[in-house]
C-alpha cells in the first residue's frame, strides 16, 4: 500500500503547480482519489465529514448492478446457444455472452472517460465519478447485436450533450444513460428495435424468433413464456434488463444502503401496476389488443420497466428531490411507461421515454410540492396566531 502511495506521489510531481504538466493535474488527481481517500481536510470550523462520498455512492450502485450484469451476460450467451444446440453449459453461455458484452463495456468506459478527462483538463476542474455508473448502465441497456461504433457514438452524445453541455456531473437535466439509449433508438432504429436485434445472430437460424415479449404482444403473436420465465429473465431483451430477480437484488442493496430512493422504486411499480390494472379492466371491450389484456402482474416483470425504475429513475440528479415529489415522480413514470407500451405500437417499450419525460418535469413537481408546503405552513401559523389571540 505504502509502495503504491510513494509511486503515486512520485508520479504526481511533474503535475504540481508551476511544473511542466500543471494543465493535466485533474487527470492525475482523479487517478489518485480513485485509489486513495483524499487526505485534504477542512481547515477551519467544525464540519461533519462522512465517509460516504460520491465515489462510494457510485461504487454501491455499480455493485448493485453486478447481479443483473452477470445474468445479462449469461442470458446473452444462453439465448444464442439455445437456438443452435440442445444443452447449454453455464460457462459456455457466460463465455459466449462475454464476447458480446465485455467489448461494449470497454468501449463505453474508454469513450466516456476519455471525454470526461478531456473536459476536466480543458476546464480545469476535477474529474467526477458520475461516469462510473453511467458507463456501465449504457451497455447494459443496449441490444446485444448493436455495432460497437454506435455504442461509442451514443456514449459521446450522452456525455457531451446530456452532461457536459449542462455543466458536468450533477448538473444534467436528463439521465445520461437513457440519453445515450434514446440517441441510439432514434438514430439507428433498425438496430434498436424489431425482432432480430435482441438475440445474437437470431436471423441466421430458421424458425427462431428473437423478438421481445412486448414486440410479440404488439404484433399480436403468441408469447411462449410463462410468468416465471419473465420474472427470472430467461427471455430475449436488452442485455441486463430481462431478469427482474437480479434487478430486485440490486434494488434491495440500493434501498438498504440508502443510495436509491425506495419511494421512487415503490411508487414506480405502483404506478405501472395501477395503469396496467385499469387497462386489464378495459381490455374486455378490446379482445384483439394483446397488450391491454396482458395481466398487470406480467407487465411489471417484462421489458425494461424494473431496470428503469430501480437504476435510472432513482438517479439522484435527475429525479425529484422532495419526498412527496418522489412519490408523484415515481408513480407517473410507471403510469406513463405502461401507457406508452399500450398506446404506441411504434415504441414497444415505454420506460425510457417515460423516465426522460419525468426527468424534465421533476423540477416542476418539486416546485409545486415546496409551494404547497409553504402555503400549508403559512395557514398553520395563521391558525396559531388566531388561537393565541
Amino acid at each position, binding site marked *: 500500500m505504502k509502495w503504491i502511495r510513494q509511486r503515486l506521489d512520485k508520479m504526481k510531481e511533474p503535475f504540481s503547480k508551476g511544473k511542466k504538466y500543471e494543465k493535466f493535474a485533474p487527470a492525475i488527481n482523479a487517478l489518485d482519489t480513485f485509489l486513495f481517500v483524499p487526505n485534504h481536510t477542512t481547515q477551519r470550523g467544525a464540519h461533519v465529514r462522512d465517509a460516504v462520498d460520491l465515489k462510494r455512492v457510485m461504487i454501491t450502485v455499480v455493485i448493485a448492478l453486478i447481479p443483473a450484469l452477470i445474468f445479462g451476460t449469461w442470458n446473452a450467451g444462453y439465448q444464442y446457444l439455445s437456438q443452435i444446440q440442445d444443452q447449454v453449459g453455464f460457462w459456455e453461455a457466460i463465455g459466449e455472452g462475454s464476447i458480446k458484452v465485455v467489448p461494449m463495456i470497454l468501449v463505453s468506459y474508454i469513450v466516456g472517460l476519455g471525454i470526461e478527462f478531456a473536459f476536466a483538463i480543458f476546464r480545469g476542474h476535477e474529474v467526477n465519478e458520475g461516469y462510473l455508473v453511467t458507463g456501465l448502465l449504457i451497455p447494459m441497456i443496449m441490444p446485444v447485436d448493436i*455495432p460497437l*461504433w*454506435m455504442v461509442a457514438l451514443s456514449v459521446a452524445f450522452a456525455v457531451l*450533450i446530456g452532461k457536459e*453541455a449542462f455543466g458536468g456531473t450533477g448538473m444534467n437535466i436528463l439521465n445520461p444513460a437513457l440519453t445515450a439509449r434514446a*440517441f441510439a433508438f*432514434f*438514430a*439507428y*432504429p*433498425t*438496430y434498436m428495435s424489431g425482432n432480430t436485434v435482441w438475440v445474437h445472430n437470431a436471423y441466421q437460424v430458421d424458425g427462431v424468433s428473437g423478438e421481445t415479449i412486448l414486440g410479440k404482444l404488439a404484433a399480436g403473436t403468441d408469447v411462449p413464456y410463462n410468468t416465471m420465465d419473465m420474472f427470472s429473465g430467461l427471455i430475449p431483451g436488452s442485455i441486463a434488463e430481462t431478469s427482474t430477480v437480479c434487478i430486485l437484488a440490486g434494488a434491495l442493496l440500493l434501498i438498504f444502503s440508502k443510495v436509491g430512493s425506495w419511494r421512487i422504486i415503490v411508487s414506480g411499480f405502483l404506478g405501472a401496476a395501477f395503469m396496467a390494472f385499469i387497462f386489464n379492466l378495459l381490455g374486455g371491450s378490446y379482445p384483439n389488443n394483446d397488450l391491454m389484456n396482458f395481466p398487470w402482474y406480467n407487465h411489471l416483470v417484462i421489458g425494461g420497466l424494473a431496470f428503469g425504475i430501480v437504476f435510472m429513475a432513482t438517479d439522484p440528479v435527475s429525479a425529484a428531490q422532495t419526498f412527496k415529489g418522489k412519490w408523484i415522480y415515481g408513480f407517473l413514470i410507471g403510469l406513463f411507461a405502461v401507457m406508452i407500451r399500450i398506446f404506441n405500437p411504434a415504441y414497444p417499450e415505454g420506460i425510457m421515454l417515460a423516465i426522460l419525460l419525468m426527468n424534465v418535469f421533476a423540477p416542476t413537481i418539486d416546485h409545486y410540492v415546496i409551494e404547497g408546503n409553504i402555503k400549508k405552513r403559512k395557514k398553520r401559523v395563521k391558525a396559531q396566531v388566531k388561537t393565541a389571540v
Partner: protein
Amino acid sequence: MAQENNNKQMSEKEAKKKEMILFLSNSEEKESFLSKQNLKLLSDPLNDDNPITVQVLGICSALAITVQLQAAVVMSLAVMVVMAFSNMIISLMRNLIPSRIRIIVQLVIVAALVILVDQVLKAFLYDLSKQLSVFVGLIITNCIVMGRLEAFALGNGVYKSFLDGIGNAAGYGVILIIVAFFRELLGSGKLWGIEVLGHKGATMADSTGLYALGYENNGLMLLAPMALIIVGLVIWVQRSRNRKLIEEA
C-alpha cells in the same frame, strides 16, 4: 375653378415630392458607399449579432428546412430578398406610416414580397418550392424580418436598411447552411443531393464507400430536435471563441 383646384393639388403633390427628396437626401448622410459603419451593418449579424445564435430569432424555420443543404440555401436566398427589400421599402415609407398601424403595413409589404418570391420559386424551381412547401409562405411571420423592420428600418435611412436586411439574412443563412450541412451529411449521407459517403445498397455487400464498412445514416439527424441540438452546439462553439457574448451570471 376646377382647374385651380387641380393646380393646387398639383402643387401640393409637388411640394410633397420635394419634401420626400429632401428628406431622402438628408437622411443619407454624406458618407462613402461602403464606409466602415456600413460594412459593420453587413458583418455584425454574421457573428456578434447573429439573428439565430445571439438574438435567437427565426428558430422555427431553421428547424424545418435544414434537412437538405439545397433547401437551406434557397430558403436563405428567399429570406435575403424579402428582408432586403422589405427593409428598404419600410425605410422609404417610415415617416408616412402612422405608428399605430405600422405592424399591419409591415405585414402587407412583407406578404407581398413573399408572394413574389414564392411565385418565382414555383416558376423556376418547382421541385424545391414543393419541398419548402409552407415554409416560404411562413417567411411572413419570420421573427427576424419583423424584428429588423421594427428595430432598424423604421429609424434608419434607405441604403443602410437595405444593408441591414442583407446582413441579417446572411447571418441567418450562414447558420442555416451550417446546420443543413451536418444534417444532410450525417442524416442521409449526401451533400447537395450527391452521395458523398458512398452508396447504400440493400445489404452491406451491395454498398460502396463507408457503407461497405458498416456505416449507417443517423436517423436522428433527420428529426427536428437534432437541428435544435446542432444550433445549440454552434452557439457553444461561437461563445467559447467570442467571449464577449457570454452574459454575466
